[in-house]
């Protein structure tokens, strides 16, 4: 007994000695990166922690994006939010108007760091900023690109995939009819993002009124009156003809491509890591196709996540947060992250640095996303999307598209219904946030 007490006393004594030496300010960062991406993120955090001796960032994996969001909501309601949290692009409006966040540009500038926010690639900057101020720090930004099986295309007598949907359709049908592969393409799990939203941006089609929501909460979806209708009709036709397959639950669309079963695949540039590791095929990638009557095509928009800073912490902790965000924005960090994961470098300076070092000579497909994002000048159809409850409207839309795939309704009606349901959800958001965005927002 006596020995035990002595031991405990010694332990406390030791802790007391260690205590003052550990003056580092510790802040938490909840994130949604798993697998290889999670390892890379931990490496990044470690780099930061080693680069200085004042602050420690603790990265905590909280599951997928939905789980992170729910985790931070619960924590905020319990008044114990983490300092930083990674939230997906679709949650932008929810976070922005939550009243629970500190805009990053304000914070970083207030703490005396000089991040050149005008240097961010345009679709990235416009997506994450509000009234000209960056509200979250772009972290993992991606965009969909077009992956293809080189051998299949060569066997069919094509150099590479065509640039327009019309020509591409002919190629895919040729590949299928000659029995070169079982399916021309596979429906991406996030087809609403790549084949509807990015499709609209690239082909200069409005997705919603009021500049896709940039000009106010009164926005309404309009994609039932654009080329999106013929786009979903095309997908339905491909499905019926067996040119496109659905991977379905328990199986990832990516596997259908990397195993050589399907010849092409539209997916995020962030899958570089996975495809490089898993593919048994001779693959390459190129730009997403565009409509033959739209020339030149516009930029695509981003997906992925950003780092939000939560309200309710002490100034010292915000010092640590600002230092970390400054570290993330450094060209060196950006280039490293770009190379390690396949996400795009968020700033022009970082992109130039990667180019300068000849990175794209060895990794040509990694440049596609950057070029596709930064081509031309974004207009109000391609700047991005500002829809509240964007996850909910997307799920309603996906349901309608699935109903159309199942033959329950024709494309036009499916899109009409999706828009109608989406608009009801947007009105709900407008009602909840009434008066929060009084002035129209223009960069």
């Amino acid at each position: 007994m006596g020995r035990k007490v002595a031991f405990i006393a010694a332990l406390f004594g030791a802790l007391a000695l260690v205590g003052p030496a550990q003056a580092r300010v510790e802040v938490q960062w909840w994130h949604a990166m798993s697998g290889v991406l999670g390892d890379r993120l931990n490496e990044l955090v470690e780099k930061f922690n080693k680069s200085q001796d004042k602050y420690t960032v603790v990265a905590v994996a909280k599951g997928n994006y939905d789980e992170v969001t729910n985790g931070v909501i619960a924590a905020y309601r319990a008044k114990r939010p983490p300092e930083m949290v990674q939230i997906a692009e679709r949650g932008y409006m929810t976070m922005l108007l939550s009243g629970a966040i500190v805009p990053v540009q304000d914070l970083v500038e207030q703490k005396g760091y000089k991040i050149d926010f005008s240097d961010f690639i345009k679709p990235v900057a416009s997506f994450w900023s509000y009234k000209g101020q960056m509200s979250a720090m772009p972290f993992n930004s991606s965009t969909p690109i077009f992956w293809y099986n080189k051998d299949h295309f060569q066997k069919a007598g094509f150099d590479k995939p065509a640039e327009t949907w019309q020509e591409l359709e002919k190629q895919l049908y040729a590949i299928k009819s000659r029995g070169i592969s079982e399916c021309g393409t596979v429906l991406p799990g996030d087809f609403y993002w790549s084949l509807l939203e990015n499709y609209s941006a690239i082909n200069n089609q409005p997705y919603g009124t009021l500049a896709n929501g940039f000009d106010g909460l009164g926005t309404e979806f309009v994609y039932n009156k654009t080329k999106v209708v013929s786009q979903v009709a095309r997908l339905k036709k491909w499905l019926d003809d067996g040119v496109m397959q659905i991977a379905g639950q328990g199986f990832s669309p990516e596997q259908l491509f990397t195993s050589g079963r399907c010849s092409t695949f539209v997916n995020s540039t962030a899958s570089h890591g996975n495809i490089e590791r898993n593919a048994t095929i001779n693959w390459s990638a190129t730009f997403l196709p565009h409509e033959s009557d739209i020339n030149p095509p516009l930029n695509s928009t981003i997906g992925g996540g950003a780092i939000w800073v939560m309200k309710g912490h002490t100034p010292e902790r915000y010092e640590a947060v600002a230092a970390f965000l400054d570290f993330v924005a450094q060209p060196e960090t950006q280039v490293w992250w770009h190379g390690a994961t396949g996400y795009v470098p968020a700033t022009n300076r970082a992109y130039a640095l990667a180019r300068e070092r000849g990175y794209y000579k060895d990794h040509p497909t990694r440049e596609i996303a950057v070029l596709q994002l930064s081509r031309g000048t974004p207009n109000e159809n391609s700047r991005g999307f500002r829809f509240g409850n964007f996850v909910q409207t997307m799920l309603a839309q996906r349901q309608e598209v699935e109903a159309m795939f199942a033959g329950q309704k024709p494309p036009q009606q499916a899109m009409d219904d999706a828009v109608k349901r989406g608009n009801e959800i947007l009105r709900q958001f407008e009602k909840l946030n009434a008066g929060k965005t009084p002035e129209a927002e223009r960069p």
Partner: protein
Amino acid sequence: MTLRLSVPWREARAPVLQRRHGGGGSKAVPAAATGTSRRSGRARPREEAGLKRANFGEGPGLPTLLLLPQLLILLFFFFIPSLRALMQSVLLSDPFGTNVQFVWFDNFRTLLASSDYRQSIAVTFWFTVAQNVLTLGSALVLAFASDRIVRGRSAYRTIILLPYAIAPAIAGILWAFLFNPAVGPLAQVLHGLGIAWDPNLNPTDALILVTLAASWKHICYDYIFLVVGLLAVPVSLMEAAAVDGAGPIRRFVSIALPMLGPTIFFLTVMNFIYGFFETFAIIDAVTKGGPAGATNILVYKVFVDGFVNLDLGSSAAQSVLLMSFALICTLLQFRYFDRKVNYGV
């Protein structure tokens, strides 16, 4: 939050309850007890109940103490969350709770007006009914068959019970994979038979698939109860029937089945509750409620609207409706079927 918690906590403490019990009799206990205890209470004659109470010794102190853990669990994991759900269901709020509006019954009105919700009700109805019939039917056949086996009976029983040990999510992924139209071996068999099976595209196929998976997972539960029920059938009755020339199937249908009445009734209730609430993981692993909402059962919709869409008001309204629906269902079942079921065995 803590303030609200502290009041019922104090009430639930033993001394307070003791005082209450002195005057009010044993009312508090049966009111908080579940349906099962009500059943057993009814099965026993009154004089026997008095005898039981005497065995507990002086006063209600000990029973209260023994009930306390269960009551506390109910308080924290049922009553308080239910109350919160009720409150949330009349609010329109952003997920962070910084902007809250009181909207009366708007959430319910929107819900009942939406075709999505009506579809979910229909899907849930067909899903639970089909699951119930399939589960009970298969379990009955298996119980009947394994009851007649003499050699290796316990081995058969163990095998039949195995699926119960598999986590629902794993079971779901297994089924999704087996019936995946691109790679699943069983889907290939179906395609070979000329059936255009595709649960990723075809809503009916998807509903069939989740019903099969959910039933498969639950057959063993029903099976255990039915096997035990069959053991309770008096051997003399069966032998007498056999002497009279009744075959095994006739004996099962005319003697064993009616005597299994209470068990089957209980299992029906349990199967409905299973279908309503516990099939979430299977749906999530097999179809995620799709395609086109074909397998979007009520409890899954509560989850998606609450945790993915962050529409807390609607999600709370749905759980309130779901809870009252399950409550009404169970009450009706007890009220109208209870009397027709023979509890005498």
